[in-house]
């Protein structure tokens, strides 16, 4: 078991504005693990949307504004896998020709931990309160899978939760069609990928699916709302919170 007492939460833009509950649930899960969560209030975005669209200079400006926000040597927990990959792998590239910022970016990259990864190494079975049987699928964002191997941490984490049966939909490792501005520049191709992903999820027989990436969840849930189904994706932090004995869970009882 690791013994950090403090962490930073870097929630990123999508969580802040579109999926704040995921961020809140992440905070509660982390607190249930006994760590104090600091949320630097000036944080905004990792810069990924501009970076992947070909506007590296704009991405650099936004990333630079985050560099001073995490002064303590605490882990920086990111509840959105692709943003975690951005911090870990692409921030150092953004500042390749600026030695001072590069050093900062590298130090931050080394402290960046994806949410599932962090929780997985600290969660004890005794903390699980709810063991109702549930059939679940796990969707991992592509960059999180390839840059951080988040799918493995996610699976390990879910395996620790009694009652959870993890299903594997067809083409589980395939992209859900989000891809940032790709979804806007090539909407038909993106939609075709999303529809296939949803077909596979529905065919798997899962009651719910979880993901540690809010971009994918916005995409998949946005398309699911147009389907005659109650199936929805949930941030893995929200699912965890519902299974753990957290402060919020007690309040709700």
């Amino acid at each position: 078991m690791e013994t950090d007492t403090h962490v930073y939460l870097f929630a990123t833009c999508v969580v802040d504005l579109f999926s704040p509950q995921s961020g809140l649930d992440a905070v509660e899960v982390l607190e249930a693990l006994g760590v104090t969560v600091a949320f630097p209030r000036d944080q905004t975005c990792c810069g990924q949307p501009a970076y992947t669209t070909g506007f590296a200079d704009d991405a650099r400006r936004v990333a630079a504004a985050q560099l001073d926000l995490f002064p303590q040597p605490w882990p920086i927990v990111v509840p959105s896998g692709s943003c975690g990959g951005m911090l870990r792998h692409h921030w150092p590239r953004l500042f390749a020709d600026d030695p001072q910022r590069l050093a900062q970016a590298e130090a931050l990259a080394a402290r960046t931990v994806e949410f599932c990864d962090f929780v997985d190494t600290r969660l004890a079975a005794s903390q699980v309160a709810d063991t109702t049987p549930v059939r679940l699928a796990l969707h991992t964002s592509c960059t999180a899978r390839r840059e951080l191997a988040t799918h493995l941490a996610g699976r390990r984490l879910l395996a620790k939760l009694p009652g959870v049966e993890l299903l594997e939909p067809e083409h589980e490792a395939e992209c859900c069609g989000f891809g940032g501005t790709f979804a806007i520049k090539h909407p038909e191709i993106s939609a075709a990928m999303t529809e296939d992903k949803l077909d596979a999820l529905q065919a798997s027989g899962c009651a719910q699916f979880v993901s540690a990436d809010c971009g994918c969840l916005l995409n998949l849930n946005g398309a699911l709302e147009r389907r005659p189904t109650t199936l929805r994706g949930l941030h893995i932090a929200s699912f965890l919170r519902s299974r753990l004995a957290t402060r919020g869970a007690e309040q709700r009882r």
Partner: protein
Amino acid sequence: MSGDRQPRPQDFKVQSRAALADPALRASFRSAMDFLVDKRAAQFPDIGAYERLRSLGTRIREHALAKLPELLERLEQNLTALGVQVHWAETPSDANRIFLDIAARHGAQAMVKGKSMVSEEIELNREMAAHGIDCVETDMGEYILQLDGDRPSHIIMPAIHKTKADVSRIFAEKIPGSAHTEDVDELIAIGRRALRERFRDAPIGVTGANFLVAETGSLVLVENEGNGRLCTSVPEVHVAITGIEKVIERLEHLPPLYTLLTRSATGQAVTTYLNIVTGPRRAGEKDGPREVHLILLDNGRTQAWRDQRFRATLQCIRCGACMNHCPVYTRVGGLSYGTTYPGPIGAIVSPHLLGLDATRDLPTASSLCGACGEVCPVGIPIPELLMRLRGAARRRPAPERKPLRDEGAARSRAETLVWTAWALLYSRARLYRWFSWWATRLRRLTPAWQGGWTRGRVPLRPAPRSLRELLAQRRR
């Protein structure tokens, strides 16, 4: 998509939409790609061993590119010493002119051709036909396409978009005297019989080359049907054409690349044929061509080579694995791209061949999922290159660097403005807080139509309160 209207990269959006609307095409591509993906995976059971082989392959290709000018010189010297005539072609029309000269010198009216993507790149068949020369495809897939006036949709499996019924119809229509059948073996037999006659009569055999070995002056040709061997041995003249990037330094560099190629491409441990051509027929030899030519095509490759950010593009060994694993290619098929090379490799190489303007929609047609980069046997960071091409298409060229062809062509004032505003908003914390406060309060005003996003999804709408506000309330 057979017939007169050839697909163009400029029409990628229209073409891909049409392909998406064709459920039969989508289903057949999906199952064909799944088949290739599984076959490849079965060839690399040990991830550690694969990673080692792949990094060896990557190093070999990087090394060859680092010494490209020197290796090309050495290759030319060694080929010339062996009696092979080497020609340099900067553009497709240069290459076609060389073909015409060779044909004229031999009074040739016909050529037989093995599978060669570079010959597609220069549209050899069409150019030769315009000058009264019949250039016949002898790879079965390519032959089917040629009979139908169609184009390849995959660099390894060119006719993957054709069904058995299509082939049966094409053969019955185009091969005189052939009986109608839908039996695959019979169809192949019909095709082979028709091709045999062409091999016997053609004075010139044309092939591509998978690798060129500088130290020995060898042309290496990887194939399964034996048509490549016939093209390089039956006709009096053999003309090989390939890109300048295909050169490797030593013969010992070949086995790892060959292994990576066949396993990644078709999931084969070895192919049926591996042809290594080292010079024309020598005195005392009973067969083989009396004349061998090699045409080395540039066609934009030097542009990719000279810019360190894009050089890795040329590491490609044309295995097609990136296409087989690409969720976009799998759905839109190869013809939608309108380029010789479709899929991820097409999206990174075509901008150098055709310019960033004509190909502006190709680098953006990727979710950057990374499946291509993961399977590329020579470690090309395809997603990185796609991002760089996106940037190059949208940025004014830097004055200190020689620009790429059509650099900045996709730059639009509106898009630039959007990102400038975005950067302003997200780099000023107070401004962002103010913005998010209002965005959450005015969430009911978010438009119901949000461009491409709402095509298949409900509109994006900010939450009632942002996370930062919720956390602030919670602490109170």
